[in-house]
């Protein structure tokens, strides 16, 4: 116990990503269940880390969450039920992929709206421009220069 505390202290000081995520003692016996647990872990944020999922983090809190996810899965929860349960305890912040709600409407809408608006603008632009002559006519000096260049001096 003491050793783990010391380790935790060292890691908190460093506050850096380290490589000790899932430990062998956490792994579920049923490979299918374990695979689901890993997939879910990748979607859940380690709350005390910077931009790490609980699957990648060695923080104690991440470990607790991993165990919690596995506990729920063993009890027969569906993936959605596990996520709902975790969110009910830790809030939306825990989701690395936010759900579509009022607050995240713009986030999810942005790619769709932008792609759509861009495509529409392109089409309108192409239609409006159709058939009109283009390019700038050469100015007198440019014409003279061109003449000179063509004569080759």
């Amino acid at each position, binding site marked *: 116990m003491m050793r783990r505390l010391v*380790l935790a202290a*060292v*890691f908190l*000081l*460093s506050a*850096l*990503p*380290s*490589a*000790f*995520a*899932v*430990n*062998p*003692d956490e*792994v579920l016996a049923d490979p299918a269940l374990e695979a689901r647990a890993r997939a879910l872990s*990748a*979607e859940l*944020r380690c709350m005390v880390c*910077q*931009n*790490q*999922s609980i699957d*990648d983090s060695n923080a104690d809190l991440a470990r607790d969450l991993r165990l919690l996810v596995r506990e729920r899965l063993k009890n027969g929860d569906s993936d959605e039920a596990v996520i709902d349960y975790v969110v009910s305890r830790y*809030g*939306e*912040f*825990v*989701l*690395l*992929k*936010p759900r579509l709600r009022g*607050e*995240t409407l*713009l*986030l*999810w809408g*942005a*790619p769709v709206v*932008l*792609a759509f608006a*861009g*495509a529409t603008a*392109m*089409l309108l632009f*192409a239609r409006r*421009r*159709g*058939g*009109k002559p*283009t*390019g*700038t006519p050469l100015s007198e000096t440019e014409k003279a220069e061109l003449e000179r260049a063509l004569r080759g001096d």
Partner: protein
Amino acid sequence: MIIELGHYALVLALATVIVQFVLPVIGTARGDRALMAVAPAAALAGFFLVLFSFSVLTFAYVVSDFSVANVWENSHSLKPLIYKISGVWGNHEGSMMLWLLILSFFSALVATFGANLPERLRANVLAVQGLISVAFALFILLTSNPFLRLAPAPAEGRDLNPVLQDIGLAIHPPLLYLGYVGFSVCFSFAIAALIDGRIDAAWARWVRPWALAAWSFLTAGIAMGSYWAYYELGWGGWWFWDPVENASFIPWLAGTALLHSALVMEKREALKIWTVLLAILTFSMSLLGTFLVRSGVLTSVHAFATDPTRGVFILGILVFFIGGALSLFAFRAATLKAGGLFAPISREGALVLNNLILTTAAATVLTGTLYPLVLEALTGEKISVGPPFFNLTFGGLILPLLLAVPFGPLLAWKRGDVFAAGQRLFAAAGVGLVLAAVVLYIHSGGPVLAYFGLAIGFYMIAGAVTDLWLRAGIGKVKGNVAFRRLIGLPGSAFGTTLAHIGIGVTVIGIVAATAFQTEHVVEMKPGMQVESGGYTLVFEGMRQGQGPNYTEESGHFNVMRGGVTVTDIWSSKRLYMARRMPTTEAGIRTFGLSQLYVSLGDAMADGGMVVRVWWKPMILCIWIGALIMMAGGAVSLLDRRLRVGAPQKARKVKPVLEAAE
């Protein structure tokens, strides 16, 4: 004394770049050629002053002069020389110095190689470069001065963050900044064009080499950073959609779009206004990236709010340049005459599609990166936007582009035939599917989508080669004629092909390494073994070691195949003495393009070690692809046609007709 000289040189550099901005602007306004001619001289002088200042700072690091606060905070007398040098830019102040150095370097390049630019254009471009330099020199001197002294001088430094003591860090930031800052030249060209209200194909021809060079460096910088994270952070990930990574990826996406739209503008005089806007946006994204990384706003909105000096200053720079440029664009864009008609199905149309998707993707990544910050600042609510979001949205956007890439070079300018192009790509698609089927035969059991992903990668490579194949007329004309045609093709054709092959290779690497990697997390005692990727790893035991400024524990593994030892792997955990900070040094062995990746976990009470072993098939393709893309950029740069005013080489070979469209 020497430190004060460096400090003084920096102040002098500020004065010089002010001159570089002010006099040419007055010169162009009055039509005074003498004032305009000041710009190149000032740019060169500014560069040498910043270079001197930067060298002094480097010198202070090399001799471990801990009377300089910045050296004391980030260096240590026992640190190996290379990390003393790279430590210069391993911290905030030093990295801003590197930014300024590279910015003035590019100004000096424009001054040197811009002799054939029209006078006014060159003066305006250098003036804008000067103005950006003023902003950053002021920022360094007022908020991030690396030359501040400590009295009395401490005896020993506090060392550089250990994860940064790595060869990757020595190379990564300079490459990245060469990319970031290189786009400043495109930005300056865009502003100069807007000021003059005149823009033509020649403009695009001047801008494209800068965009190409910056893009190549940025590609290399991002790939380098990705590989560094892969081997240094120790859990085998190579891209995390971390805001810091996104900050470099967004300008890359915008810059890629810029390269392609500048092509349309150069060849067809179309998309002028859009290209100018993209040039502005690309550098704006570079500035935004600098703001995100340097202001501390990413770590915490609150940390930013409590010590906002630097953040507010950069935000000011950001608002001034982006806002100013966009306002100028809004006022002046109408004066730029649009040109170049094209049908929707044409090379131009394909490049417009490319631009649409790339800019939408850039905007999506930008939204995802900023959304949590903005939402928290506005409502106080905290949400996370992480890899699952980006993989879904970015992946969905980029997939159609990947499929469309080989079509681009095969479509004719002005009016193309998508069915004809499709027919020509039939073989490429076939190659992709057959190769994917071969992989399925050899290595079945992966997710179905993975095989489609591989097929897309192979198809992209074959599709890129198809363009050269057809243009050389291989199979249609005699071998020697085809060969002569092939080597007679312009450098930019090879550049395009290489860059597109590079994307294909990267796609293959990403798909294979993601879908077919295997992971084993086991507790091992000496003598135990684990299977991975067809190899058997035997744990031989642990050994204590000692580096110049760290202690380490290393695990030794023998790698066997078919009962025979093929190689061995050392995987270590280090503890850096000065900061009492642990790092992992993963043990990596390369087999062809695949890698075995061994990382040590905790020691168990009963004497076992937690060991993580990954088999990462084809993972090297991810970075090799990036290198190929970069090579494509370099080959394109060597194309003589890009060098305005370069005399045409007399051709012995009669110019060959390009493949009929």
